[in-house]
């Protein structure tokens, strides 16, 4: 039963990502990407990582994808974006990167096949994550907060320049 659920969720994730790649309309692609992320979250849940599963929804589906939709709303290109996307569907654009990725995929599957992996995953509770995150890895947490602070400052400066340009355009 769990195995079947795992494969169904995996198939949904792959299919949704595939559809997302081939859409020319950015919003449609994003919706499929959200579906794919939800499927991945469910796989995390099945593999015994409920905390990671919920964070996958909160952070990726609920925050980063929201930012993407925000950007699309802000740009609001209408059909102009679709035209550009259509040109990207030209095989000459994507054939070489996909070939290279295919080689990587083969290598990856070979190395995974050679591993003798444990087939009994343990459930990692949120509490254990918290204990190790603020125990041995506390330095990483503080560094992450500094990194986020840096990201915030950078975003603020870029945004301020954009809004200044916006005002100048309004006046001129």
């Amino acid at each position, binding site marked *: 039963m769990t195995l079947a659920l795992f494969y169904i969720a995996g198939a949904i994730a792959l299919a949704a990502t595939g559809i997302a790649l081939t859409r020319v309309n950015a919003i449609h692609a994003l919706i499929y990407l959200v579906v794919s992320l939800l499927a991945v979250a469910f796989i995390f849940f099945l593999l015994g990582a409920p905390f990671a599963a919920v964070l996958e929804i*909160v*952070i990726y589906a609920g925050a*980063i994808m929201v930012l993407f939709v925000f950007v699309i709303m802000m740009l*609001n290109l209408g059909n102009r974006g679709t035209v550009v996307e259509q040109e990207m569907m030209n095989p000459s654009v994507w054939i070489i990167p996909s070939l290279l990725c295919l080689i990587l995929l083969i290598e990856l599957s070979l190395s995974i096949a050679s591993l003798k992996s444990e087939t009994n995953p343990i459930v990692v509770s949120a509490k254990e994550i*918290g204990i190790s995150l603020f125990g041995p890895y506390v330095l990483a947490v503080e560094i992450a907060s500094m990194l986020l602070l840096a990201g915030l400052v950078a975003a*603020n400066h870029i945004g301020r320049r954009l809004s200044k340009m*916006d005002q100048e355009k309004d*006046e001129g």
Partner: protein
Amino acid sequence: MENLAAEQSILPVFVFFGAILLLVATMLGIASVLGERKQTKTTDLPYESGIIAVGSSQVRLSVDFFLIAIFFVIFDLETVFIFAWAIAFFELGWHGYLAVVVFILILTIALIYEWKSGALNWGVKSQTARKETS
């Protein structure tokens, strides 16, 4: 692959999800069958309070919205670390408390920086900008 207890507990949620999907599909389905079909001169126009729409809907939008979205993503990531601390709060004790206070302090610096640079009070900012130019 997985212990049986976890497998059984997830099943009701699946059925619940299926029931919700069924409900939503039924609602939309019934409405599309029962709904009247009326086609008048103005049916297919965008609604703008009775005024005929001018121009396209592709209007220029304030960049402040974009800034808010970025701030949201960054602060949301920070809250996740606090989630991880809150759940193991008693186990971590004073050491964890100290760590999280430093973390929140850095977060507060970020907030104060944003505040002082005027990214948070946009209404006021655009008013002062207008005053300066006029």
